[in-house]
């Protein structure tokens, strides 16, 4: 198990052509072992989301190599990456991104639908996941009937219902007040501790980053610091 779950080797991501050319990532290298909780920080436009998209197999490097689970994910086609995401990766977004007019339970079931799991099992697993985020009694509510904190917890249930290896969270507390933010972080930390879920999380807030084991700082597409978080130290 010496092999890291995530390994960036001189990863470049370039957008645009000529004058408008932007290096969102400029030869970034780092790795994340299984079970680690990593916070990624940096000013706006520094390349955090770009890195997260590649980590989450939504995107591929322009140059360099990205290994996920020891597989060269940059080399996989769309379909294979979709399968990889479905089997191994859960996503949480700043804006929750639940399907509107769809109940919490149905939202949580969604990744299971694409796994081809039957309706009864789906429902059971979704209810279990909702229970784990403390929303068992909201299973049949639609997003519009839930608060921001509750919606984000439904999103967490949807991310963990498939029991993934990696959780990718891009500013998960960006839209939440301090108290809801800490509730969400407590949840993520518990999944990290109890299941050994690897977490890569972007945040702007230092007190949120403190929940992580390690913090990587980006600036202009480069890593400027990579170290053990204050609390974990």
């Amino acid at each position, binding site marked *: 198990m010496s092999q890291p779950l995530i390994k960036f080797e001189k990863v470049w991501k370039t957008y645009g052509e000529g004058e408008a050319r932007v290096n969102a990532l400029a030869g970034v290298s780092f790795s994340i072992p299984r079970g680690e909780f990593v916070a990624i920080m940096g000013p706006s436009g520094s390349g955090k989301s770009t890195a997260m*998209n590649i980590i*989450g197999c*939504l*995107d591929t490097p322009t140059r360099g190599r990205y290994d996920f689970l020891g597989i060269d994910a940059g080399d996989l086609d*769309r*379909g294979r990456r*979709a*399968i990889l*995401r*479905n*089997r191994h990766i*859960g*996503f949480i*977004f700043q804006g929750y*991104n*639940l*399907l*509107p*007019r769809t109940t919490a339970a149905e939202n949580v079931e*969604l*990744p299971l*639908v*694409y*796994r*081809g799991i039957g*309706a009864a099992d789906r429902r059971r697993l979704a209810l279990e996941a909702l229970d784990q985020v403390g929303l068992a009694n909201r299973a049949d509510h639609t997003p519009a009937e839930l608060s921001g904190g509750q919606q984000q917890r439904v999103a967490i249930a*949807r991310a963990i219902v*498939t029991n993934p290896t990696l959780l990718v969270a891009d500013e998960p507390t960006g839209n939440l007040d301090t108290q809801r933010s800490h509730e969400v972080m407590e949840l993520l930390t518990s999944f990290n501790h109890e299941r050994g879920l690897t977490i890569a999380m972007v945040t702007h807030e230092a007190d949120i980053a403190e929940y992580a084991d390690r913090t990587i700082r980006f600036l202009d597409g480069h890593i400027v610091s990579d170290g053990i978080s204050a609390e974990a130290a």
Partner: protein
Amino acid sequence: MLWETIRLAMLSIRRNVMRSILTLLGIVIGVAAVIAMITIGSGTTEKVKSDIAKLGSNLLIVNAGRPPVPGSRPDRVIRELGDKEVEALRTHLEGARAVAGAAQKQVRVVYGNESLTVGVTGADPDFLVARDWQIASGRPFTDQEARGGAGVCLIGETVRQQFFGAGDPGDATIRVNKMSCKVIGLLEPKGTTGFGQDQDNVVIMPITAFQRRIAGNRDVDSIYISAEENVSTSDLQDSVEGILRDVRRVPADKDNDFNIRDMTQVAETMASATTVMTGMLGAVAGVSLLVGGIGIMNIMLVSVTERTREIGIRLAIGAHERHILVQFLVEATVLSLFGGLLGIALGLGLAYAASWVLSVPFVPSAAVVLLAVGFSALIGMIFGFFPALRGARLDPIDALRHE
């Protein structure tokens, strides 16, 4: 999984009921038009066939005058048919079940205070045989009555209703022109023809009486000849032609100065003409289906754009391109199918209403309905494919960023 997708499609259609219905209007109207056209068309074909069958089976009708040739004027002077021709056919023609001369005139018929303009026919007793016309009650006239030109007559259902209401004509005497005529029987009802002519507004009397007291001449308007069971009408037609040319002394180098219509052929010609018409109208209606398909494509493009973010979410959490493609294809198909079903209901409704108005039979065809179902599903698939593909090919990151 497929069931799931269908359920999802239904949900999404339900969420935009008004928009869905407006979108579907093209398909609904297209399918309704096709169904209505074809159903009314086959009803008309049926009607034409049965009308002609009502004239009698294996029937030849002879009239005076050259056969009508398109583009040439009809003869100015027509040599009428007469008893001589009827007699000749009766004596010499083989293979005929019945030969009957008949003459006709619109005449005012009076009974008590009631009067009615009726198509009065003077006919030989065999006329009813030739035309397969049954007597509902009473009796036909005898040969003796026919020869003697007796004042007896058979009346049609319309005439009975006008004069006797719900009652029985009994031995009533009606006045036809200035002639008194005893009602001896009631003809079985035949209904109206496809051209709206009431075939029951008739009075039939011996032709001798008709010629003497109504027409005032010895002319025979038409000769009805029905073929025996296994005699072909075209063979019979040849024999009739020979006998008539003979008796009318038509020189060998001259055309017939009479015409013979084979009603079986007329029936076939007319039926195939209405079938062609139906097909053409159906094709025109089919074009509106194409317009409906473009409507579906349009709405699906809107739907894909509106739900870009949803597509992004689905792709991010592991939906395959194929899943998105199928989802939108199913949605387009269900939508179109729904429109098709509405269209079928509407089309059948229209055809039913039209069958009342045109008094043709209502003949819905299961094959046509199934075809419409299949066709509307196909339209959904074809026109839904491009929008669905567009959704499936979206980049998940872009799609997630979409507002």
